[in-house]
């Protein structure tokens, strides 16, 4: 990331969300991004996922300037190389667990999406929950399904936004263990947005955001 800035315009005028961020993350590295509410953590994640365009600066992803990609290319990049885990899980409520996991594979045109999804759920200890709808799963199970979906396409970049925010401590720990273990086995880069300094401490390094700036 070079001189990365994000300004949003509202009725109250221009707000500077992120100001000239510079950092590089290597393959297989895990980075914890912490900071108070409104410091720009989620915005940074949106930029890294290609869901938001920076106002200034550039993001290079495996040698590709993300600014050069159109909306569909960015979507394809997310589908094949980036996995995202949300605080609110964001599962499709009308689809079964395995269908949720299979979605990115199907969108990428994989012919064996169902088998791979079921296999992955089995790996995460959810084989007997594969045909359940999200409303029939506990919060922890829902987040594990969401994690399975995020890693289904073997992404090189894993993004997580407060993945334990809606879970109790026991489930939270279990989910984080799972995320770190998947990151390690897949040698994926992992960026974790969290308020929780203990969680962030499990990462290789920590980036502290304050009012849109990186604190040393």
């Amino acid at each position: 990331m070079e001189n990365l800035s994000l300004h949003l315009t509202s009725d109250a005028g221009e707000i500077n969300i992120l100001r000239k961020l510079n950092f590089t993350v290597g393959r297989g590295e895990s980075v914890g991004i912490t900071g108070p509410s409104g410091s720009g953590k989620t915005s940074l994640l949106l930029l890294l996922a290609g869901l938001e365009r920076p106002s200034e600066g550039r993001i290079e992803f495996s040698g590709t300037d993300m600014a050069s990609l159109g909306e569909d290319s960015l979507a394809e990049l997310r589908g094949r190389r980036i996995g995202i885990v949300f605080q609110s899980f964001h599962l499709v409520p009308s689809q079964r667990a395995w269908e949720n996991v299979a979605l990115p594979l199907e969108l990428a045109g994989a012919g064996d999406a169902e088998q791979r999804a079921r296999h992955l759920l089995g790996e995460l200890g959810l084989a007997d929950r594969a045909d359940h709808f999200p409303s029939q799963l506990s919060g922890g199970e829902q987040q594990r399904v969401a994690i399975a979906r995020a890693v289904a396409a073997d992404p090189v970049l894993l993004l997580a936004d407060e993945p334990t925010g809606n879970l109790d401590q026991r489930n939270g720990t279990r989910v984080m263990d799972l995320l770190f273990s998947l990151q390690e086995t897949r040698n994926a880069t992992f960026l974790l947005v969290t308020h929780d300094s203990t969680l962030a401490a499990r990462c290789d390094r920590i980036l502290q955001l304050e009012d849109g700036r990186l604190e040393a």
Partner: protein
Amino acid sequence: MDAALLLLRRELRDHQGAMWVPLLALVLGIFLIGTIASLNAATRAGLALQGRAILGGDFEVRQIYRPVSAEQIAFFHALGRTSGIIEMRAMVHRGPAALLSELKAVDEAYPLAGTVTLSPSMTLAEALARRDGVPGAVADALLFERLHARPGDEIQVGAQRFVLRARLVDEPDRAARIFALGPRLMIGASEMAATGLAQPGALAYYSYRIVTASGGDFRAMVQRAYPGEAWRIRDVSDASEGTRRFLRDFDAFLVVIGIASLMLGGMGLFIGMLRYLEKRAYTIALLRCLGGRQGQIARCYGLLLVLLWVVALACGMLLAIPVPFLLAPWAEQYHVPFAAGFYGFPWVLTATTSLAVILGAGTIPLFRALRTEPAQLLRSRHIQLGHARFGDYLPFVPLLAALAGAAHFLGASPRLVLGILLLALGSAPLFLGLAASIRGLAARFLKKPVLLRQALLRRGTTRIIAILGLSLSLFVGLTQIGGNLRTIIAASLPARAPSFYFLDIPADMAARFDRAVTGFTGASDLQRLPMLRGRITRLQDIPVERIVRPAGEGWVLEGDRGITWSRTLPPGAPLTAGRWWAPDYQGPMLVSLDQDVAKAFNLKIGDRITVAVLGRSFDAEIANLRQIQWSGLAMNFVMVFSPGPLSAAPQTDIATVRVPPAREAKFLEAITSQFPNVSVVHVREVLDQVSQMLGALRNIILILSGVAFLAGLLVLSGAVAAEQADRRYEAILFKIMGASERRLVRLYAAEFLFLGLLAGLLALGVGLTAAFLFTHTLLGEPWRIQWDSAFLAVILGLAASLLAGFAGRWRALGQKVAPYLRNE
């Protein structure tokens, strides 16, 4: 499997219920346009199939008052097989009973096309032949019924006795006239002279039908051979003129219903699709987040639209295909040319138009869906579709083109097509604008009650008023147009019409006739005028063929018109310009003209009109203009000439008399016994027949308007349901703040009654204006407000508003607070 297909399969599995309402609205729209296109095709096919039979040959030459010369008949024979017939109105007597009939005397060659069917079965020649010195006759079943006659009974027509040999079951050229004044009586042409009815001046039509083997431009050949003759020449393409004119207005009306219903279906789809995609915004954002490309999402929902089209088309077809077969008996009863069947073109038309409507209306919300920002998943609780852009509305262009094309192919005039386009373009903005103004006024002036004020200021209120207003306007417009089409013939007649028309009163009997009428107790308002038939051939020396027919008054130039002459101004039509001629005027021929006709053709006093009467041309100068009130069936003439050449021509008189209903039978008996050869039209009987037909017409109009309204109601319920989530949340908040369910019911009732009333009043204004423009400006027909259906529309508005309102909010009303909050 392609990802788009996979997504579609899951959409259908999980969310099919959400598309029921727009699907139903579409089915109704497709059903109506399909039905109307099929009826249109059946009528056209009927006219084409029966055209030759209706006309009685390939061509027909008609002359009034007298037969053409022997040399001219020989000319016709040289062109092809020829049949000559004579038609006139004549009284039929059986004992003391008398009845006006449509007499037709046919030669041996009749019919050249089609066949005559009789009951009991026999050939026409057998039925009409002389037996024991008495000629035969055949007649409609109605004549047998009215005269209490059976086959074998004798009747008297003029000076000749006939034996009724058989009932006329099928007369191939019958549909040429829809409104006959009496039942058909058919005799042999050779017996006409013996009746003594075809006297000089008696109104008889001499027609010569010709079947040619060679083809060619028959009209031109005849006109070249006999340029001076004022003949009416018709070919198959303009057979059944009356039928065509009758069907023209009704057709235009049907086209408006069909297109408007399809538009409503499109609107239902637009709202339904928008609502559906708004609900799916979360999934769409998620799909984008997980790598879904815009093309995949577009294909998924595009395929959904195509699937909706296929299902709606199939259902619409299933419903519409039987309709022409169900209506066939009705068409046969009223002699409307109609060939019920399954026609391909109407369905090609319906399929393409409905596809254009579905793609047009459905893709506009889809564009917004494709712009759904996936970043909302991390930022917002409520995921929304992307913002609309101007370019999103471009699919309206092919949609409008398809609607205009459909109207054109259904036979709408260019002006009607333009009107339909304006309707399609203007109706949504007009209603949204009006509804937004009402909302604005409420915001400014309506301070209390607070809850009602809040209800009016809601986001969805504008949409609800607009849709209800539009559907009701359609209902008001359609029922008003339908009502006016009926009243054009019937509404103002009974109160002011004379009781009887007397035709063919010989000039030498006129004085005796007057004495007989005025001597009868109760008879009043006797009016008698000479009656001739004449055809306008030139206006200001310009041949009528080169004159553009103005809307509404073009009929004046078509065919022969009844004309008269008079020394004094006939009552009932006051002068509006110029002066009446002196009673003893003997100068160059003058004419008094209807002021509306003068205005339509831009004629003024001093201008010249040329008319052909009895084969001679007369030039007349316009001396004055009169204001004629056509409704009421009073005796009126567009042209009244000064005495002079016309008074010397052979002619008979026509008279009208008013008699109290209780005395009508006695009066009829008294006059017909004294004047057996004077034809009588019993106006009330004719009106009864007409009103029977209009009753059937009224039902058809009501059913079609009702179905269109139902489509509107579905769209409305969709719009109300679209607000469901917000209303549930609102109901929860009201309940938390202490509002009881009963109070909420009262609030909703007040809100929807108020909205219904507003929409109803709005619809009255718009619907009445549209109906007036359609009926008066476009069709050139007279216009009168139908108060009963206008009132019905307001009541329907209130009822529909309440019904759709409560149907859409029932769940919000019953929403329990605790579970809702727990799930939040």
